[in-house]
């Protein structure tokens, strides 16, 4: 699992690196603020402690100076009578004891000539005898001190002999218990402050780490990440992280529940309790609706919802008139549901638009069983039937016309031969016309039979050798005269040698006849029709290129439909069944090939017939 804010495997989305990066951004400010506050508090405590210690030290130095001065005074007063008595030993003991008792580094009695009469350090004594008359020395009492030392000097009166100088110096402060306590207190305060600082920092980083991980998760979600495994954050980052994970888990569960519900609905399985009858109704491709006397829908199967372009839940319970607007249909439903009409009514409604076009047949009938439903509506999509009916009607009309025209010609010329006394020339012309019209009839009937075979799925090809050179020679011979009669330039561009392929000669000829015949038919006099044959390693291809009336883009999509004739007025003026191109495409597809068209209205058309090379004869 690749959690955001998770442990070692951190990458762009997850891991501590992300958290650290986020902390360097917006989340770092509170941390630094907390650290600054902590520093100020700890610093204040430290300064207060320092000032306290400093004041205490000053007082200690002053007390020390007084102590040193008092010690000097004591020694001077004690030494004066002893020196007068000449008892140097006692004086020197007093000096040593006083120096030790007062922690003095130096305490000595100095004579005017510089000799040391007594000192805390006996080694420093240089005058071992007290002179009867001391050299003159003048000295006022002084006390000096600095941060490190305190010094005092004063005169020692020796009655009858003169004066000597008492000098004392020692450390400015003396270690005392209070001083140590103050220092210890400052140390403890500092240590506690540092520990508090670390704890605050740790807590804040942990708390903000959770927020940073959640923020990284949100940013990942914004970038399109949806995997719960990736969006989940490390729960050890705190309560927020756990709450976030619970939120994600809840959302994921809800999403799964909705998907399952949607899938169940799509499969028509969400309604409980379902019965076999429900399943059977949902398996119908006809829409089935039951409504009550208030026109409210009591039941609708899946197909009904599709036909009404609504969800089934929306249909059931709602008034049916919300979904149907055709006035005839609404009246029929109201009539049957109210009981005013007791027979079946059928209404066909044509719908247009991109959202499901077609012809729907609504059959509305009362439900006479002993139930609460007032009416039943059966909906059928009859679009294809209507299209087929229209095409069949058009075909019948067109075929009648197509059959009647040659039959009329044949009948007229036969009557002419039977009734009159035709000249040999007239007889020859009549027989020629009869022959042409017979072939025309044969072709029409053949097309109809082929269409019938296609409709029945029985159109088959008979594989045989097809000599293309002979086939194109026949085609050229068939259409040369027709082209000249219409003053068309008909050209066959054939390669020097045409192959022999495997196929159904009659079917291939049928397709080529239709393509070339159409080109001649729909190209005005003076135009050009070219039949270009190409033979490469993969396909045998025939392009029929004309400079005729062309085909509009709308018609081009449908010219291969059976019975379809282009809506161009110039096409309607010419006879035709609308079967030729459909037949051509079908038979070529049976050979594994295809017929396509490229055309521009008023410029001309190019029909391309191609058959895969594997149809080539061995």
């Amino acid at each position, binding site marked *: 699992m690749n959690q955001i804010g998770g442990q070692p495997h951190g990458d762009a989305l997850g891991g501590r690196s992300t958290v650290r990066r986020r902390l360097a951004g917006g989340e770092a400010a509170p941390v630094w603020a907390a650290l600054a506050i902590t520093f100020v508090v700890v610093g204040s405590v430290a300064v207060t402690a320092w000032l306290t210690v400093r004041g205490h030290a000053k007082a200690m130095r002053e007390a020390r100076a007084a102590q040193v001065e008092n010690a000097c005074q004591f020694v001077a007063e004690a030494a004066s009578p002893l020196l007068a008595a000449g008892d140097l030993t006692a004086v020197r003991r007093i000096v040593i004891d006083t120096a030790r008792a007062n922690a003095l580094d130096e305490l000595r009695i100095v004579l005017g000539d510089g000799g040391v009469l007594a000192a805390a350090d006996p080694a420093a004594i240089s005058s071992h005898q007290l002179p009867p008359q001391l050299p003159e020395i003048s000295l006022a009492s002084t006390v000096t001190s600095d941060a490190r030392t305190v010094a005092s000097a004063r005169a020692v009166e020796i009655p009858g002999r003169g004066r000597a100088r008492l000098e004392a110096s020692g450390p400015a402060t003396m270690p005392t218990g209070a001083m140590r306590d103050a220092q210890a207190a400052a140390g403890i305060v500092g240590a506690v402050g540092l520990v508090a600082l670390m704890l605050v920092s740790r807590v804040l980083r942990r708390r903000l780490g959770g927020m940073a991980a959640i923020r990284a998760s949100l940013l990942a979600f914004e970038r399109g990440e949806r995997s719960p495994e990736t969006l989940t954050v490390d729960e050890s980052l705190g309560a927020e992280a756990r709450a976030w994970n619970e939120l994600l888990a809840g959302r994921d569960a809800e999403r799964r529940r909705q998907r399952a519900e949607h899938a169940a609905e799509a*499969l028509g399985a969400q309604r409980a309790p379902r019965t076999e009858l429900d399943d059977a109704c949902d398996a119908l491709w006809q829409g089935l609706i039951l409504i009550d006397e208030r026109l409210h829908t009591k039941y609708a199967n899946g197909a009904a919802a599709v036909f009404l372009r609504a969800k089934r839940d929306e249909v059931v319970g709602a008034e049916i008139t919300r979904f149907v607007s055709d006035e005839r249909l609404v009246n029929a439903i109201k009539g049957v549901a109210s009981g005013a009409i007791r027979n079946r009514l059928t209404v066909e409604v044509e719908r247009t638009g991109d959202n499901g076009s*077609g012809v729907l047949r609504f059959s509305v009938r009362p439900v006479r069983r002993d139930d609460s439903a007032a009416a039943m509506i059966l909906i059928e999509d009859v679009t294809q039937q209507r299209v087929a009916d229209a095409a069949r009607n058009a075909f019948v009309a067109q075929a009648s016309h197509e059959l009647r025209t040659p039959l009329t010609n044949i009948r007229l010329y036969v009557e002419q031969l039977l009734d009159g006394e035709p000249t040999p020339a007239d007889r020859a012309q009549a027989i020629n016309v009869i022959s042409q019209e017979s072939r025309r009839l044969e072709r029409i009937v053949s097309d109809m039979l082929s269409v019938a075979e296609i409709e029945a799925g029985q159109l088959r090809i008979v594989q045989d050798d097809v000599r293309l050179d002979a086939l194109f020679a026949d085609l050229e011979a068939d259409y040369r005269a027709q082209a000249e009669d219409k003053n068309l330039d008909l050209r066959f561009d054939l390669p020097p040698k045409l192959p022999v392929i495997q196929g159904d000669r009659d079917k291939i000829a049928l397709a080529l006849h239709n393509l070339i015949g159409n080109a001649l038919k729909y190209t005005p006099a003076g135009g050009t029709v070219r039949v270009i044959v190409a033979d490469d390693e993969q396909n045998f291809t025939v392009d029929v290129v004309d400079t005729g009336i062309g085909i509009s883009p709308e018609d081009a999509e449908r010219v291969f439909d059976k019975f379809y004739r282009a809506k161009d007025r110039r096409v309607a003026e010419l006879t035709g069944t609308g079967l030729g191109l459909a037949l051509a495409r079908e038979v070529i597809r049976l050979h594994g090939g295809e017929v396509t068209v490229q055309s521009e209205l008023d410029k001309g058309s190019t029909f391309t017939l191609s058959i895969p090379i594997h149809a080539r004869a061995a």
Partner: protein
Amino acid sequence: MQINEQRQGAVIVLKPVGPLVQKDADQLKARAADVLRKSLGRFVIDASAIAYADSRGLEVLVELTEELGAGGQALKISAANETLREVLELTELTPLFEYHEDVNSAVRSFL
């Protein structure tokens, strides 16, 4: 993927050309969904030019037939080659579809 669309009466015939895999399958799904919406389900898939299908291709076919199933219909597949039929059988998806030998019989089934 090239998808040829041909109208036979009120029925639309979709003919995908090439293997039905990954993005090509999604392309067919989008195209078929559009046709389904426009035609109330009157459409056929001409599978004659589908060489084979991968899991995504099969998934798209199942999704389409499920969508049609909401209206009581099933996806009509015509002219499926041996490979595609075998794949559908091996994956036990065969019962989900309606098969026709050629496009014409599939179109006629709407009558």
